[in-house]
């Protein structure tokens, strides 16, 4: 089922507007991530989809049906919370059956459906236990099974993995993806972890200060961020932002003048800075920086250098190149992961293509 937001705004207590004029569509049968820093409005957006919150203005559609005024029950959403919220006094089986019991499904059918779901999320052996006896990962599986029990029109996951340890998080991430693909249920997944979003989502919506910053596929968000916020938020380590004022002449040869005159910052991903003798596809510019430090972390080498008064970070300059003990480094830029932004932070040029057109 498709979800469409039309000019949706929300204000708490009539003072602070939390969400401003949201317009977007969540595609049917896909997994969509709402990603953003805390306080960006992503959980609020999820609660608007669920019907636990109602918008102050605008309309929400499920397919063609206007559900703006309908509550969570009428919208038939399934929801999984960060802290699982399993009923502690019920067994796993009773937890999974609860939505079915409320829907007055026959006992026999309840049991059949619960066993089916338990198998899907791999908790068939834990059905008689209470939630308190399960590990975090198992509790999350039960919560997912419960939310799927009544075949929801849409499955909403509110930071479902935040309470798990790192390893389990990766495991459950893949598990959720598998379950989503197996059931084909339209899923919205809220997270603040970009890594999680990049791995699991068909589409990512990046939110900040109650507005959609960019909404497209994970790779496109990485390759073509629409603004400085997205470029900084996605990618680890963070992008280098260098004032362009003194470098304009270097770029004049290959960047159209009308773009260059509006550009104020050069944005470079750390892995797009390579040594000058690299044989990769490079931009026709040649820079020189002063080495500050270089340290290796496993497969990665972090080189810090001073360039134009800014400290920039490069991760693709090989350790061997640095052993010549020279203080200055010649480097060049790849044709990917290099952008120019204007005064407002909008990205107006990307090295891997032409002008940025905000598609999708």
């Amino acid at each position: 089922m498709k979800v469409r937001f039309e000019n949706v705004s929300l204000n708490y207590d009539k003072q602070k507007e939390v969400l401003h004029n949201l317009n977007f569509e969540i595609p049917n049968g896909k997994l969509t991530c709402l990603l953003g820093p805390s306080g960006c409005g992503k959980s609020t957006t999820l609660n608007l989809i669920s019907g636990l919150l109602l918008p102050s203005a605008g309309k929400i559609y499920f397919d063609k049906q206007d559900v703006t005024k309908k509550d969570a029950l009428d919208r038939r959403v399934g929801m999984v919370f960060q802290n699982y919220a399993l009923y502690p006094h019920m067994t796993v089986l009773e937890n999974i059956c609860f939505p079915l019991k409320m829907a007055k499904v026959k006992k026999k059918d309840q049991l059949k459906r619960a066993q089916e779901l338990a198998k899907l999320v791999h908790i068939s052996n834990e059905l008689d236990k209470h939630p308190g006896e399960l590990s975090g990962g198992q509790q999350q599986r039960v919560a997912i099974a419960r939310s799927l029990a009544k075949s929801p029109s849409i499955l909403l996951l509110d930071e479902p993995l935040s309470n798990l340890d790192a390893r389990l998080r990766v495991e459950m991430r893949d598990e959720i993806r598998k379950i989503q693909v197996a059931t084909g249920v339209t899923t919205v997944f809220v997270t603040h972890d970009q890594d999680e979003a990049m791995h699991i989502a068909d589409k990512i919506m990046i939110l900040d200060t109650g507005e959609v910053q960019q909404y497209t596929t994970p790779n496109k968000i990485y390759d073509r961020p629409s603004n400085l916020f997205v470029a900084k938020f996605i990618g680890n380590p963070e992008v280098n932002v260098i004032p362009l004022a003194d470098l304009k002449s270097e770029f004049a040869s290959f960047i159209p003048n009308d773009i260059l005159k509006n550009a104020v910052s050069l944005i470079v991903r750390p892995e797009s800075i390579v040594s000058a003798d690299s044989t990769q596809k490079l931009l026709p510019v040649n820079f020189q920086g002063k080495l500050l430090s270089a340290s290796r972390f496993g497969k990665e080498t972090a080189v810090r250098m001073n360039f134009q008064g800014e400290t920039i970070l490069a991760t693709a300059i090989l350790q061997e190149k640095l052993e010549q003990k020279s203080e200055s480094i010649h480097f060049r830029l790849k044709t990917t992961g290099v952008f120019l932004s204007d005064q407002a932070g909008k990205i107006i040029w990307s090295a891997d293509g032409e002008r940025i057109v905000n598609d999708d």
Partner: protein
Amino acid sequence: MMIKKPTLKSTLIGFLYLAPMLLILLVFNIFPILDSFAMSFFTKYNFYTNQIGQIGLGNFKTLFSDPNFWLALKNTLIFVIGVVPISICLSLGIALLLNHIRFLAGFFKTVYFLPFVTSTVAISLVWQWIYNDQYGLLNLFLRHLGIGPINWLNDPKWAMPALIIMTIWKGLGFNIILFLAGLSNIDQRYERVAQIDGANKWQTFRYIIFPLLSPMTFLVTVMSIISGFKVFDEVFVLFGGSPGPGQATLTLVFYLYQKFYTEWQYGLAAASGVVLFFLILIVTVINYLYSRKHIYYV
């Protein structure tokens, strides 16, 4: 080293630290309990000189053949059965309502709690007026409903209901506070999840809130039952020192009081105290066994 194996010496030192509290406990709690148990077997006994003339089961024989004792037992049971369920349902209902309102919640809490902190004597004075058959507020109200004047305090049929109503009213505030504490311990997200799972308000209460509240309900029940079995001062002041018209509100503790203070039958009084003790013990054990099976402690 901090953790030592217990030796005779360290155990003695431990007891030495506990000694002041143990002494108080022994003198004021353990000894009187044991002494009153013993006293129930003294059939000939001088309370003032503490001279024991004869020991036997005579007190219990007299007790069980005294129709007044059985009347007191019956009245006490009626009182407990009349007070506890209504009191719990009412206070739970009010607590649920108070839990949902923000506006004036503190004010209402105070109002409900006031009777609990007010002296029973003062309360009874007010209720004597409310129950007055000619000028009473309650009869005035009932007259508007077309119900004839009821002689609450002088009619043996109505004395027990009058006592029950006043006791419920008096205990409401404390139970409400306990239930509110229990409710505030229940995470609000369960209500939200239940809403998404399709439970309406009643189902949410029936399947989620009430089971999660059960430890508190259990506590309130046990405490209400125990204090119900011990009822005395409400009777004493509401009926002016008498056990009600035609002994209609003669309770076990009132019986004990009569035997001890007005008839000076100390052995008999102690025996009835022992019976009361075992009665409460049995009820509490039943409660406990029930709770082990049916109450889920999170």
